């Protein structure tokens, strides 16, 4: 990649390996969705596939963390996620309150177990 950046310039590289391979799936979605209404079976199936995929991303981010998050023990991360969920339920299903509770739990647990 480094040699390619020198040869083609960073902006052309951005288009070739970033924009185009990413955008193609949006365009395929646009063409597929033409003429479909929101109750059609393909649209419902697409929603479940997207939801399951997103759930997979979430679980992986918590269990197989990268970067600085990986230095915080897995039990602390899972515990913090559970705190977030319980706080979300207790605080009238407030996403914001849940996220704050999860972050505070992570900070507390991280401080306790890493230091």
């Amino acid at each position, binding site marked *: *990649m480094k040699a*390619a950046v020198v040869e083609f310039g*960073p*902006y052309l*590289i*951005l*288009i*070739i*390996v*970033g924009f185009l391979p*990413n*955008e*193609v*799936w*949006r365009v*395929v*979605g646009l063409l*597929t*969705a*033409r003429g*479909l*209404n929101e109750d059609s079976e*393909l*649209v*419902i*199936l*697409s929603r*479940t*596939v*997207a*939801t*399951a*995929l*997103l*759930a*997979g*991303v*979430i*679980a*992986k981010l918590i*269990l*197989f*963390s990268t*970067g*600085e*998050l990986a230095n*915080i023990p897995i039990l602390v*991360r899972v515990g*913090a*996620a559970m705190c*977030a969920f319980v706080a*979300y339920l207790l605080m009238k*299903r407030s996403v*914001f309150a849940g*996220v704050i509770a*999860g*972050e505070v739990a992570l*900070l507390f647990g*991280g*401080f306790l177990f890493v230091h």
Partner: protein
Amino acid sequence: MSTSTTFPSSVAAYFGGVKSALLSVFSLVLMGTYIGMGALAHDVGVSSGWLALSTMLVWAAPAQLIMISALGTGGTLLEVALAVTLSATRLFPMVVALLPLLRSPGTRLRDMLLPTHFTSISMWVESLRLLPAVAREHRIAFCNGLSCGYMGTAVTFGFVGYYLAAGLPPLLAGVLLFLTPMSFFLSTVSNARMMIDRLALGFGLALGPLLAYWGVQLDLLWTGIIGGGLAYAVHRVREATQ
């Protein structure tokens, strides 16, 4: 939770969208994510203008991460393009599920181009939650405003991270990284009102780590197809038996 929202004009709907974006938990997430992205871009040695353009053109944090880390560590053009396109497959079902919500009888294909480009996880989750309460003729404007609010936040905090790169305390960096799974998790839970969506969520949470643990190739793609397919199948069986 979401009350019906009426706007006097498309312009008002657009700014209503911007406001919803700035007040939602996802702007917090984008701040955290793009501070990290900015710091990475700085370390790798690309310019801050390049990062801003990549945020606007690619508009998908995983693809940007792949691209920027590859600039630092190597990999051929083809390998990087392939990794980016695999990470982007999730956008396809998202667009298919979203666009029918935006369409009204007079909608032309070109009106759909911007919402298509803007489709990303945060925008998708919030659109599915908020759009049903917005009058159909204002949904595209609202959605574009929502997306511009998010994109503006991401671009701005990309710059912040780039020039702050000097190093966050590690624990704080970990807390910033944790914002993404936490907010995606709770927003998806809160969006999953129907049994079919709860099933998809549950299957995905279980399958994602399992397939990754087993070292299955394209684990997330399979998580989506198998988990989403199972949820859909259960829903069909329940419908047929009722």
